[in-house]
């Protein structure tokens, strides 16, 4: 049974095309079930159909119907080990835009669990999911942040350790600020205050984080009450100056300034216990962590190779295992028939004869079994299996 893959991804298709082929989860599941023994993995970066059997023409046709145009020039087709390796790399995060991103593993799992699959796809997807977990536990590929908001939160953790209970003052109610605040909140920090020129926007965002909206004039007075200040306004001048900070502080204060032009006076960074990171600093940190991720990707690729070998061995064994099983069944059948011809024997004599004949059978079949499995790995499995069936008359037993 062949494994087939047809798909498009961010490597080969522009976003205009990918967004047409991207399917919501329910539709992806529906498509997989319609194709039968198939899995449809559809994310913002890829839409891929994995099928048992050589049905890639039909799969491609289905994708083209969804896209509304021919995909022959951008779609990739793969089979067997190549398709499996591709899936392994996808689940390991090695085929993602950001190496090692973890979201894809959940998406692969959801696609697999939503589909109705046979033994081939079941095996390859279970292997892919195990590999995805292994890559994340045995390498540091996913440990460092890969985006500015997550880098800002990780830096805050470098100052405070656990962010649980740490209070954040959010200045500005823009989308990037909201994302960074979400990242801090996800790590346990409490968004305590939201300040914005527009009181309505401040109130709306404060409601989302269960925070208190503040008047612009109240900003300076709250700087002594918080641990992290996250600024992302479009103000043309600094909104936080060094002189706004309380002179006597016992705890550190971490400033994240992701605004351009900058919101926080750089002089703040010179104050004892104050740390200020602007957008350039954060991007430099992200670039560095991405370099680290790429280094870890080399280790992850080795794990992919190991998994591919296991898949190849398993797939090869599929060709010979039924023939071996038939041979053993036939031998056992003959042994049982001959034992039945024996006359009156004591229980002990019968047990002895059964034991001796079983051992003879096992010893006789051991070497052919091993050789068959070796032949399967060397790609001669099908020929050997056919020969075995022919020589021992196993055709009817398939």
């Amino acid at each position: 049974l062949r494994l087939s893959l047809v798909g498009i991804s961010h490597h080969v298709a522009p976003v205009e095309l990918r967004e047409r082929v991207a399917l919501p989860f329910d539709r992806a599941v529906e498509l997989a079930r319609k194709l039968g023994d198939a899995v449809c993995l559809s994310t913002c970066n890829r839409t891929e159909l994995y099928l048992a059997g050589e049905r890639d023409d039909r799969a491609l046709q289905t994708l083209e119907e969804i896209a509304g145009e021919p995909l022959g020039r951008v779609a990739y087709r793969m089979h067997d080990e190549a398709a499996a390796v591709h899936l392994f790399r996808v689940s390991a995060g090695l085929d993602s835009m950001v190496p090692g991103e973890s979201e894809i593993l959940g998406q692969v799992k959801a696609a697999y669990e939503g589909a109705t699959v046979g033994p081939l796809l079941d095996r390859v997807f279970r292997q892919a999911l195990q590999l995805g977990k292994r890559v994340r536990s045995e390498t540091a590929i996913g440990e460092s942040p890969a985006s500015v908001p997550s880098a800002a939160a990780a830096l805050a953790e470098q100052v405070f350790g656990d962010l649980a209970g740490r209070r954040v003052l959010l200045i500005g109610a823009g989308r990037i600020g909201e994302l960074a605040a979400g990242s801090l909140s996800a790590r346990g920090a409490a968004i305590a205050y939201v300040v914005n020129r527009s009181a309505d926007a401040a109130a709306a965002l404060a409601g989302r984080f269960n925070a208190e909206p503040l008047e612009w004039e109240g900003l300076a007075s709250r700087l002594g009450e918080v641990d992290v200040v996250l600024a992302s306004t479009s103000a043309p001048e600094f909104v936080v100056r060094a002189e706004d900070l309380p002179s006597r502080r016992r705890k550190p204060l971490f400033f994240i300034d992701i605004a351009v032009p900058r919101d926080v006076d750089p002089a703040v960074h010179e104050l004892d216990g104050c740390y200020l990171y602007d957008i350039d600093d954060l991007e430099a940190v992200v670039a560095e962590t991405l370099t680290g991720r790429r280094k870890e990707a080399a280790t992850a690729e080795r794990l992919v190779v190991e998994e591919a070998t296991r898949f190849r061995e398993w797939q090869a064994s599929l060709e010979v295992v039924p023939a071996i099983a038939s041979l053993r069944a036939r031998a056992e059948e003959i042994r049982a028939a001959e034992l039945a011809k024996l006359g009156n024997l004591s229980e002990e004599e019968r047990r002895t004869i059964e034991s001796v004949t079983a051992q003879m059978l096992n010893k006789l079949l051991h070497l052919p079994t091993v050789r068959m499995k070796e032949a399967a790995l060397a790609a001669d499995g099908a020929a050997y299996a056919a020969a075995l069936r022919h020589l021992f008359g196993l055709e009817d037993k398939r």
Partner: protein
Amino acid sequence: MLDLLFWPALIGYGEAAVAYSSARFTRLATWGVRVGWLLQTALLAVQAARTDGFPWDTWAGSLNLFVWLVVGGYLFWGCRPRYRLLGLAVMPLAAVLFLVAGLGGGTEAGKDSHYGNLFLTLHVGFVLAAFAGFTLAAALAGLYLIEERRLQRRSADILRLKLPPLATLERVTSTAITISLPLLTAGLAIGLVRLFDHGEGVDALIVATILGWLVYGAFVALRPTGRTAAYMALAGFAVVIVVRIVLAGTHF
């Protein structure tokens, strides 16, 4: 028997020191620390069982005990895979000092001890335990200053080569000093009682130890934070170095 414990323990520490240099082998390093420390614990137990009195009364013996206390403190407070660089700071030093202790005869047993009575045993034991705690505190304070400087300089690799967070370093430094100070107080008090009983005079090492006690006492009383706390911990440790190295051998 003792060699069978010393060399494997040293190999454990050495393996940890080398393995901490790569993120991939952090787990292996942690096992090296654990196994090495357990073997050294067994070594100390055998030494204690075979010696009449306090078995670590030589400079090499006290170094052996000192390494055990430092690695024990590290194992319980800082041995975390994500704080690999802390291990890289502690374990090479521990391995080298342990080797020096072994070469100096500090891991042998069965010799007569100068410190046969309980007072002296407690005096030396408490002071050494306190010094080990202060050493750990100094290492953490040093790491605090390094990490703080990296944050100040906005080092791009700060998340890739991770040290423990500032708050953790500050908290553990403070805890190590807070636990060690009562030990030093007890060790000093026992020593002073014996000193007055025998009518002996105060020497330079006692004066330096009292000076160290004052520095750490001020630390506990004032509860400094941030850089001030780190500098105070290092100032106290400078006194410990004077006591352990410069004035070693001047006491009695």
